[in-house]
C-alpha cells in the first residue's frame, strides 16, 4: 500500500489524472455492462411500448446538435456576404476561403474566461443565456424540414412556436435586468417593448394562413401547399407575407430592427456584461433565430419542402437494389470492388504522367473512389428517399431568406425606437387586421359559392 502511494506521489499531474480516471472508467463500464445485461430487455420493451417518447428525445437531441453547425454556417455566410458588400475580401485565411473562421470564433469564445461582474444577480445572470438559447432550440423542434422529418408534429405547432418566441424575449429581459448595467437594462427593455409590439402583427398575419389551411400544425400547412408553386400561400396571402417578414425581422432582432444590441447607441445592449461562453450563447441564439425565422417563412408562405414544380412521374427512377439478396456475393463485392476501382481510377495518372509515382497514383485513385462512392450513395438516397429531396428544397429556400436578412444588415441603417413602435402600431397592426378580414370574407364567399 505504501509503495502504491509513493508511486502515485511520484506521478506528474497528467499521470495522476490518468491513473485515477482509468480505473474509475473501468469500474463504471463494468457496472454499465452488468446493468444492460440485467435490465436491458425490460428497458427495451418499455421503450418499444412508447415510441413517441423515444422519438421526441432523439429528435430534441438531434435538433440541439444541429443548431451549432447551423449557427456557424450562417455566421460565416454573414461575414462573407457583408464583406463582399463592403467591397472587401472577408475572411480568407482560416480554412478554405476562411470557411473555418466562424468555427474558430465560436471555439475561442468557448475558451475565453467568463466571469460574473460584481453587483449582478448571479442566478438570473447565469440562466439568461440558457433560456434564450433553449427557446430558439425548442422552437426549431416543430419546424418541418422534410416529409416525415420533424421533431414533433404538434397540432398547435404555430401556437407553440410563438410561445417559445416569447420565451426567448424573457431571456433577453433577464439578461438586461440582471447585468447591473444601464446599457444592458436599456437593451433588455427595448427588446421587451419591441417584441411585445411585434408579436401581435406577427401572429395576426399568420391567422390568414391558418384560416386557409384550417390547421395550426406546420406540417399540415406545408402539406396544403403541395403541388406547383402556384399553390404556395405567398400568392394567396401576399400582404400577410410582407407583414410577417417585417415583424419576423423585428422578432429576430435583425437590422434595421436590431435596437437591442445597437452598437452605436447602447454599447452591446443586453450582452454588454457577458463574456465567454455565456456571450457565445447569445451569439449563436441570434443566428439560430435567423434560421428559424427564415424557415418559418418558408414553411408558411413558400411551400416548405415542396418543390416548385412536381417531379413528372414519367421521369421517376426507382432504383431497386436488393443488397440483402446478394448474400455472400455482397461480401465478395465489398472485398473486390473498392481496390479494383481505386486501381482503375489511379492508373491513368500513373501511366499518363511520368512524374507521378505509383503510390501517389494510388492515393489519388483512393480519393477519387471515395468521391465517386459518396456521390453514388447520395444519388441513391436522393432517388430512393423523398425526404432528402424535401430537405434540399427546404434548406435551399431557407438559406435564400437567410441571405435576405444578411443583405438587409449590410445595407440598411437602424430605425429609432419610436419609429419602430409607431410602425408596428400604426401600420402593421391595421394592415394585418385588414388582411385577416379580407381572408375570412373571401373564404366565406368561396364556401357560399360552392
Amino acid at each position, binding site marked *: 500500500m505504501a509503495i502504491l502511494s509513493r508511486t502515485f506521489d511520484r506521478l506528474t499531474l497528467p499521470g495522476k489524472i490518468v491513473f485515477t480516471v482509468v480505473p474509475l472508467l473501468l469500474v463504471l463500464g463494468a457496472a454499465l455492462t452488468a446493468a444492460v445485461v440485467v435490465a436491458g430487455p425490460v428497458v427495451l420493451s418499455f421503450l418499444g411500448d412508447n415510441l413517441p417518447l423515444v422519438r421526441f428525445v432523439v429528435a430534441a437531441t438531434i435538433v440541439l446538435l444541429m443548431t451549432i453547425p447551423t449557427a456557424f454556417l450562417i455566421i460565416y455566410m454573414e461575414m462573407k456576404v*457583408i464583406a463582399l*458588400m*463592403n*467591397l*472587401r475580401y472577408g475572411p480568407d485565411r482560416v480554412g478554405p476561403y476562411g470557411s473555418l473562421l466562424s468555427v474558430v470564433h465560436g471555439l475561442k469564445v468557448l475558451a475565453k474566461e467568463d466571469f460574473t*461582474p*460584481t*453587483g449582478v444577480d448571479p442566478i438570473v445572470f447565469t440562466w439568461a443565456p440558457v433560456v434564450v438559447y433553449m427557446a430558439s432550440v425548442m422552437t426549431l423542434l416543430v419546424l418541418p424540414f422534410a416529409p416525415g422529418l420533424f421533431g414533433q408534429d404538434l397540432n398547435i405547432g404555430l401556437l407553440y412556436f410563438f410561445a417559445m418566441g416569447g420565451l426567448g424575449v424573457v431571456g433577453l429581459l433577464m439578461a438586461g435586468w440582471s447585468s447591473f448595467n*444601464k*446599457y444592458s437594462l*436599456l437593451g433588455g427593455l*427595448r427588446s421587451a417593448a419591441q417584441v411585445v409590439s411585434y408579436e401581435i402583427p406577427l401572429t395576426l398575419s399568420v391567422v390568414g394562413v391558418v384560416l386557409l389551411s384550417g390547421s395550426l400544425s406546420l406540417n399540415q400547412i406545408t402539406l396544403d401547399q403541395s403541388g406547383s408553386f402556384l399553390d404556395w400561400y405567398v400568392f394567396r396571402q401576399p400582404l400577410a407575407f410582407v407583414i410577417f417578414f417585417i415583424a419576423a425581422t423585428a422578432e429576430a432582432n435583425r*437590422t*434595421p430592427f*436590431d435596437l437591442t444590441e*445597437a*452598437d*452605436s*447607441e*447602447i*454599447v452591446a445592449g443586453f450582452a454588454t456584461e457577458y463574456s465567454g461562453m455565456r456571450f457565445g450563447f447569445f451569439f449563436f441564439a441570434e443566428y439560430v433565430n435567423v434560421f428559424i425565422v427564415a424557415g418559418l417563412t418558408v414553411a408558411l408562405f413558400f411551400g416548405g419542402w415542396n418543390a416548385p414544380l412536381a417531379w413528372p412521374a414519367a421521369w421517376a427512377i426507382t432504383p431497386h437494389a436488393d443488397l440483402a439478396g446478394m448474400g455472400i456475393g455482397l461480401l465478395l463485392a465489398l472485398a473486390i470492388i473498392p481496390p479494383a476501382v481505386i486501381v482503375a481510377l489511379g492508373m491513368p495518372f500513373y501511366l499518363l504522367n511520368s512524374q507521378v509515382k505509383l503510390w501517389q497514383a494510388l492515393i489519388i485513385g483512393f480519393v477519387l473512389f471515395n468521391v465517386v462512392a459518396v456521390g453514388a450513395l447520395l444519388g441513391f438516397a436522393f432517388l430512393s428517399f423523398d425526404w432528402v429531396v424535401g430537405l434540399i428544397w427546404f434548406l435551399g429556400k431557407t438559406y435564400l431568406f437567410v441571405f435576405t436578412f444578411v443583405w438587409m*444588415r*449590410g*445595407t*440598411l*441603417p*437602424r*430605425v*429609432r*425606437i*419610436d*419609429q419602430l413602435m409607431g410602425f408596428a402600431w400604426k401600420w402593421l397592426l391595421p394592415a394585418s387586421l385588414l388582411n385577416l378580414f379580407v381572408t375570412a370574407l373571401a373564404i366565406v364567399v368561396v364556401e357560399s359559392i360552392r
Partner: protein
Amino acid sequence: MTSVRHASADDPRVMLEEDIGVFEPIPPYPPRTEREAEFYTLGDGEMFINMGPQHPSTHGVLRVVLKIEGERVVDLDPVLGYLHRGVEKLCENADYHHTIAYTDPLEYISALFNEWAPVMAFEKLMDVEVPRRAEYIRVLSGELNRIASHALFMGWMALDLGGLTPILWSFIERDEIVEMLAALTGQRMLFNYFRIGGVNGDLNHDFMSRLGTWMSKASAQVEANQTLLNENEIFVRRMRGLGVLDRETAFRMCMTGPSVRASGIPLDIRRAHPYSVYPELEFDIPTRQEGDCLARYLLRLDEVKQSLRIIDQCLNEMPDGPIAAKLPRLIRPRPGRAYAAVEGPRGQYATYAISDGTDQPFRMRIHDPSFVHLQAVGLLTPGNLIADTMAIMASLDPIMGGVDK
C-alpha cells in the same frame, strides 16, 4: 473598479472603497458651479447614464453624462479633456517651425488646415509674401483634404445610425485621397507639409498622376457613395427635422462652417474674410435653410462638389515659380500680434500668435471649430432620444483631437 464618494461635503478629495465595484458618473466632489449642481440632481424617474470615454459613437474619447428619463434625454453634460495634450504650452516652448508638428494632429482627419492657420499667422508676423505657386498648392491640397474629411463624415454619420457599409465605402474614397497626399507630402494623415512662407515640396509626378486618375472619376464616385443613404427612407426619416439650429442660435453659439451654413448663414471665411488665392477662384457657398441634421449632411455633399471645382481651377491656373519664400532657418519676428483664420471642413481654424522677438512664440492660441460646435450638442439634444444624441453629435462632426487640443 473602485467607486468614489467624497468624505465630507467640503473635502474635494476622493475616498476609495475597495469592496464595491460600482462606477457612478456623479463627480466625487461637491458641485462647483450652479450649472453642475443643477445637472447632478436627479428628478423622479430620471437616471444618469455615462457615455464614454470609450463608446463606439463618441468619435474618440469624449465622455458625455446623459440624464435620461426612459429613452428620452433630459439633459447632458459633456466632459472633455481626455485627449488634452497641452499643444499650446508645447508650442510656446518650441520654435516657430517646430510648432507646425505640434498643431498637426489636432483635427487629425484634416491636418492641413491645422497647419495652415498657424503658418498664415506667422507669415503675418514676419510680413512675408508667399509665392503664388505655393498658395495654389496649398489650396489644392487643402481642398483635397476637405473632401477626405467630408467623406469620413458621411461614413461616420451612417455608422452612428447603424449602417455598416457606407463607412467602408467612404474609407475607400478617403484612402485614395490620402494616398495621393502621401505621395505629395510623405505622410498619410499628419502631413507636415506647410512651411512658413510656402510649402515643403513641389508637386511631383506620382501625385499628379494619382490626382488625374482620381479626378476623372471623382464626381461620379462621390455620387455613387451616396446612393446608399440619400434615397434611404430610414436614413432620411431619422435625420429630417432633428436637431434644428436656427440662425440666431448659430451665432450665439459662436459656430462657423457647414453647421451655420446649413442654417442659412452664408458665413464662409474663404469669402467673408478672403485669404490665400481664394478671391481669384470662383466657387459658390452652398447654404441650406432647414438647419437640421439632414441639411448639415447634404450641405457637405454640395461642398464636396464645390471643392472639386476649386481643384479643377487650381490645376488649370497653377502658375510656375518658387514654392517657398526665402526665410532664415531660425526666424525671429519682431514683437507683435497676428490672428489668422482659415475655413476648414468643420469651420474656422484660427491661430492667434504673439511674438516677443524671440525664436519662440510667446503665446499661441489655437481656435478649433470642433470645440465650439460640441457645446451645441447640449443645446440641441435635450428632449430627443438617446439614438438622436448620436445623430446630432455626428452631424456636428466633432473631432476630439481638436476639441481637447
